[in-house]
């Protein structure tokens, strides 16, 4: 028991590594905000484009969504960070991570938004087109507000997973919370900072988990 407190919940070590941890937390927060925003925006655009059903665009969008969803997020990140520079395209760490995770998130979000758009009754879109709204106006004012409400539960759980996956940015040495916690661990020869990193993640993720559970109860998938 003493060994556990000494090694995992050592207040003194945690205090000594506070700057590293908080610095990393800041980077992680920035990354999370960007990838959730870009991912959802990107996913929404793809979903709306796919719904428009253009003959040449659609297969491309489907291929994008399917291929990206078949590749692990870390593999995508490594392709962008380690392979792309050979073509002369080089991103700094932070933007490589943002790009990889937004691309990955976008593919998942696009599927979610698409299922929401499809769930809105076709008659409504037809009705609003026939009263003179353009395709985009129909989307903006009629379909999307309803679709968004329908997909709120999967949207939340997908966001949870995307945020969890953001920790892989540490693998390309982005000084995010996990990377700096590992650094603090080697400096203090004590793994408490790693536990600290996990708890900082909990601050963001535990409320999200509660939200997901709440949605699952309110809109049971198995009903």
């Amino acid at each position: 028991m003493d060994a556990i407190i000494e090694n995992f919940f050592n207040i003194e070590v945690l205090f000594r590594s506070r700057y590293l941890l908080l610095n990393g937390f800041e980077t992680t927060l920035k990354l999370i905000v960007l990838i959730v925003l870009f991912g959802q925006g990107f996913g929404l655009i793809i979903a709306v484009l796919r719904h428009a059903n253009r003959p040449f665009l659609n297969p491309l969008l489907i291929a994008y969504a399917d291929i990206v969803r078949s590749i692990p997020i870390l593999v995508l990140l490594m392709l962008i960070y380690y392979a792309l520079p050979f073509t002369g395209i080089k991103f700094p760490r932070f933007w490589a991570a943002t790009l990889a995770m937004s691309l990955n998130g976008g593919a998942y979000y696009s599927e979610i938004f698409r299922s929401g758009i499809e769930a809105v009754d076709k008659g409504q879109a037809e009705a609003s087109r026939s009263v003179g709204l353009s395709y985009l106006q129909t989307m903006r004012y009629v379909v999307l507000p309803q679709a968004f409400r329908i997909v709120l539960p999967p949207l939340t759980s997908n966001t949870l997973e995307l945020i969890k996956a953001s920790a892989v940015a540490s693998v390309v040495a982005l000084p995010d919370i996990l990377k700096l916690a590992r650094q603090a661990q080697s400096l203090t020869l004590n793994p408490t900072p790693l536990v600290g990193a996990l708890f900082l993640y909990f601050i963001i993720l535990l409320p999200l988990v509660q939200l997901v559970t709440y949605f699952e109860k309110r809109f049971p998938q198995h009903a």
Partner: protein
Amino acid sequence: MDLFGIYFYFFNVPIMLKVFPSLLSGLWVTIKVSLSIIAIGFPLGLMLAVIRSMSIKYIGKPINLLIRAYVDLLRASPYLVLVSLVYFALPFIGIQLSTFWATVVSFSACLSAFAEEIFRAGIEAVGRDQKEAARSLGLSFLQTMRYVVVPQAIRLSVPTLTNRTVAMAKAISMASAIALPDLLKQARSAQALVANPTPLVQAAIIYVILFYPFVRLTLHLEKKMGKGF
């Protein structure tokens, strides 16, 4: 960059042939870990779900609270942080696991948390009257679960569970960060060895071949069950 450059750096066939055996050995590790976490995570999750849905006298509430804490905390833990904790922190209290087992332990725990949630939703979705009917016919609680509720609950859980398991199998690539010799790790080593990123592209192609059928399958299952997600 010209076409030859793209061929030379990303789709270099001689390099692909040269590193293929080592990538295959990595793929085998990825598959072994996936099967292990399924073999541990599913039964554990099902067990927790069944325990949580029976109300044992006196100790039922605290046990349920414990299970809920286990599930919520694990669902809120990023896989890579968890694997790092198991692999880098546990040795400090004398628990030294190999990279393989560190990965299996942390991912099984996560999968069991997801499975618990999914199975419990399935168990709850089976009509109450069925449980009552089974009990009034003289089946015990466990018999009711075993022969009436769980078979239906499992069928209801298939789409969501497939989804989760595929996501988890993909996430195993993160364990390459603790040097698990999986497909991604082997590709990275090969890339360093030949000074050419072709092995990474090759690994991505192998991942697509491996997971694309599951991505389509999940879509199909979701549609068949008439659900949005």
